[in-house]
């Protein structure tokens, strides 16, 4: 399989998933979209192994790693500042508190995930 064909199949799957998601919102059914996403991911993973060309090399991983680290830093700082601002304004609007809490826990989860994965790669390589 060529990379171009894989990308074409990926686009088709994305369109199908989008249609199913929009229909699921209308009919209030969220099991089918989850199943479709899981099945599509498995199909794409299987197809990716059949690609003869090189999809990603060390340069992609290096740039991806630097980009991911910067993205995490920007997100964490933005989320932390937003959380404090929203929490301080919770008395003006009670809806701010759950948003601030969600931001706080999302940032914590991201930090924990990053630490665990970094520790794993540090040990393995």
């Amino acid at each position: 399989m060529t990379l171009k064909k894989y990308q074409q199949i990926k686009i088709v799957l994305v369109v199908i998933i989008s249609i199913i998601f929009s229909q699921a919102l209308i009919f209030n059914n969220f099991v089918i979209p989850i199943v479709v996403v899981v099945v599509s991911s498995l199909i794409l993973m299987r197809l990716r192994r059949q690609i003869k060309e090189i999809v990603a090399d060390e340069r992609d991983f290096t740039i991806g790693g630097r980009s991911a680290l910067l993205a995490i830093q920007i997100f964490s700082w933005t989320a932390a500042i937003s959380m404090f601002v929203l929490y301080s304004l919770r008395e003006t609007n009670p809806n701010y508190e759950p948003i601030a809490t969600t931001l706080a826990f999302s940032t914590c989860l991201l930090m924990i995930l990053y630490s665990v994965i970094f520790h794993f790669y540090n040990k393995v390589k």
Partner: protein
Amino acid sequence: MITKIKEYRAKLNLTQNELAEMVGVRRETIVFLEQGKYMPSLKLAYDVAKALETKIEKLFILDEEK
């Protein structure tokens, strides 16, 4: 960093695509290597030197050595 990949590639009549396939990277990586815009890992530098039938120090020249 200065590289002489293009010169050695021309000597062996290799295209960027062929060299990329030989060392297991994408063509874009070879382009960035030739332009000196990407610092390869030791393994990649070794693989490129081996593919071009030369040594790493003849292929990659760091700016301090100019």
